């Protein structure tokens, strides 16, 4: 079966050990977690894990089943890239003198639609939100000038279709 990118969304109670439990399921099948993000969700007191893997659909489905089985997991879903709106964020720390000495840097900032977060005497920080390839392109463009620090976040995603979780959670709220 063909492998592709899947975004797994896990709605759960906020529990200390749950990340360990979930990551163990990927570990057992030797599936690399390409990106992981944990945040609150649209529902009060419900956490959301957003996990990106490269796998077959069969395995994505089985993994979601095994995740959902965990006591504190309310519901888990998997989606292809086409089914989601997704973004990543990145921060670039760059030496300040480049901002003034290298005209090209300013073009990169403009072309990439990134923001200057802060400017200090020695460095400035650029923030970029977008698809993975856009961040990679910006990284490649800046690299020849020297990047002091670089970090990229995990993917965050929402689905185009309604998440059926909403109904389940509505039931919870009434309990």
């Amino acid at each position, binding site marked *: 079966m063909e492998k592709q990118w899947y975004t797994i969304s896990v709605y*759960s*109670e906020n529990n*200390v*050990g749950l990340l*360990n*439990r979930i990551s*163990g399921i990927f570990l*057992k099948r030797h599936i690399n977690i390409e990106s992981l993000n944990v945040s609150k969700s649209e529902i009060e007191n419900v956490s959301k894990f957003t996990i990106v893997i490269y796998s077959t659909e069969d395995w994505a*489905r*089985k993994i979601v*089943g*095994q995740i*959902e*089985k965990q*006591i*504190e*997991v*309310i519901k888990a879903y998997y989606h292809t890239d086409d089914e989601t709106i997704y973004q990543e964020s990145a921060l670039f720390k760059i030496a300040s003198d480049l901002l003034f000495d290298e005209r090209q840097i300013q073009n990169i900032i403009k072309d990439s639609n990134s923001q200057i977060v802060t400017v200090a005497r020695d460095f400035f920080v650029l923030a970029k939100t977008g698809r993975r390839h856009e961040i990679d392109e910006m990284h490649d463009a800046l690299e020849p000038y020297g990047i002091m620090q670089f970090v990229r976040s995990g993917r965050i995603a929402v689905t185009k279709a309604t998440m059926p979780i909403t109904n389940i959670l509505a039931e*919870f709220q009434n*309990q």
Partner: protein
Amino acid sequence: METLKAQKVKNEKQAAIRISGAEAIIHCLLAEGVDLIYGYPGGAIMPVYDELYKFQDKLTHILTRHEQGATHAAQGYARVSGKVGVAMATSGPGATNLVTGLADAQIDSTPMVCITGQVPRHLLGSDAFQETDIVGISTPVTKWNYQVTKASEIPEIMAKAFYIARSGRPGPVLVDITKNAQFDELDFVYEKCTGVRSYKPIPKPDQNSLKQAAELINNAKRPYIVFGQGIILGEAEDELKALVEKAGIPAAWTILGLSGMDTSHPLNVGMVGMHGNYGPNVLTNECDVLIAIGMRFDDRVTGSLDTYAKQAKVVHFEIDPAEINKNVKADVAVLGNAKETLGLLLPLINKNEHTAWRTEFDKKYQIEYDTVIKKDITPTKDGLTMGEVIEQINIASEHKAVIVTDVGQHQMIACRYAKFKQTKSNITSGGLGTMGFALPAAIGAKMGAMEREVVAIIGDGGYQMTIQELGVIFQHNVPVKIVVLNNDHLGMVRQWQELFFESRYASTVMTNPDFVKIAEGYHIQSRRVTERSELQDAVTEMIASKNPYFLEVRVEKEDNVFPMIPSGASVSDIRLK
């Protein structure tokens, strides 16, 4: 009326009492109906043991000789009684010694709660004496686990632990309790847990899939049922029998399903899997509708998945949604508790006989009887066989005993030949294949069903892994019957070495001690059988005994278990020799 109702609620609601966390743990256990626990004390669990001392008239604690023994005893107790087994240990090595039992209970869906002591909260993460991250370690092998660091958490967490362990597809739960939480006081009120919002233990059966299942079954020419432990855990034995009889469907079992249906029932056709019966394996690939009930298509059951029941429509009755389409694709999946789903299915099923199809099983049985079974249970060669020992136990115990087995050749032989009239009677380590399981599990099984005969059948290898539990049998005079089938080898591994590694017997030959003398050292009545002529008398004497009894039978050293599906082969390619 209103006031009366309000009054009633008020009365039912316990008044809070101010007690220590350690005492609260005892009250939680009592509230959950626990009267027996297995365990081993140590520094970080001492406050709880101090309370156990005070409550010993209400709650019996059995000191096993190793924490692993405590888990297997709790498992044996749970499997035979249907109740939650409880094991307790201290932090560090005490806790890590529970891991094998947890893993075994997890893969075999056994309800168990393990309580471990932990270093005080302020020392967590400091590599304190006997500190180990047991919550981290046990995560992959528990249904749920939790570390309690405040006394006030105890009632809620204990209630949740028991609820999760026993509900839905059962499993093991570990509660780790820091020492400060045992010493500190709390206002104790106990409320049983009735639900966890993120956890749906039993899926609701879907009418549509039930109808589809019934239609497939009613139209089938060669329907075939394979059932697993879901029948026993779901207490669906009567519903299964009713279905089998109404629709005239031959039914086979996985080793964990064994005893879920009377072994002498004409429609009980035997065991599936690697060392299962010939017909049930071969005919898996000739049926037109395969009805799997409460089983998970383990690789030891299916052999090669590429050639497993490809011709058949598969109907899967299962409580755990994650098992659907995990190994074998289901054409129709019916989620739910087997008792409920089979109950709903029954009225939709037409009466049928399937006489011609059933004779296929009889024919295959005859082939297996002539080539394998006859030689196993009524041998004419000199050496004693494991099969004839099981047959003698069947006769002496009149098919009424609980049979507890370890892992290996003796286990396969016992599961193949032991006869059962009653459910919850076959206690074995199936999924994990834990050598050393049987002796402590037999202790738990006996204590969970004192009125029943409990016979542990163990190989000489596995016996020595938990032999120290003879101490429990001696100290508490637990009247279990222990049969060691001694072939001076790790028999199953030796069999594989003979068949697949050109008889290179790497580390499978054992020089054994005098097992009879060891049992005598524990003051357990014991006997050794080396000749066929003594076997019947010895087994009869053993079963008649009201006390613990140890019987060593010296069996043929290099016998093999057949039939056998070589690892990764098709069920159709099962070997008879």
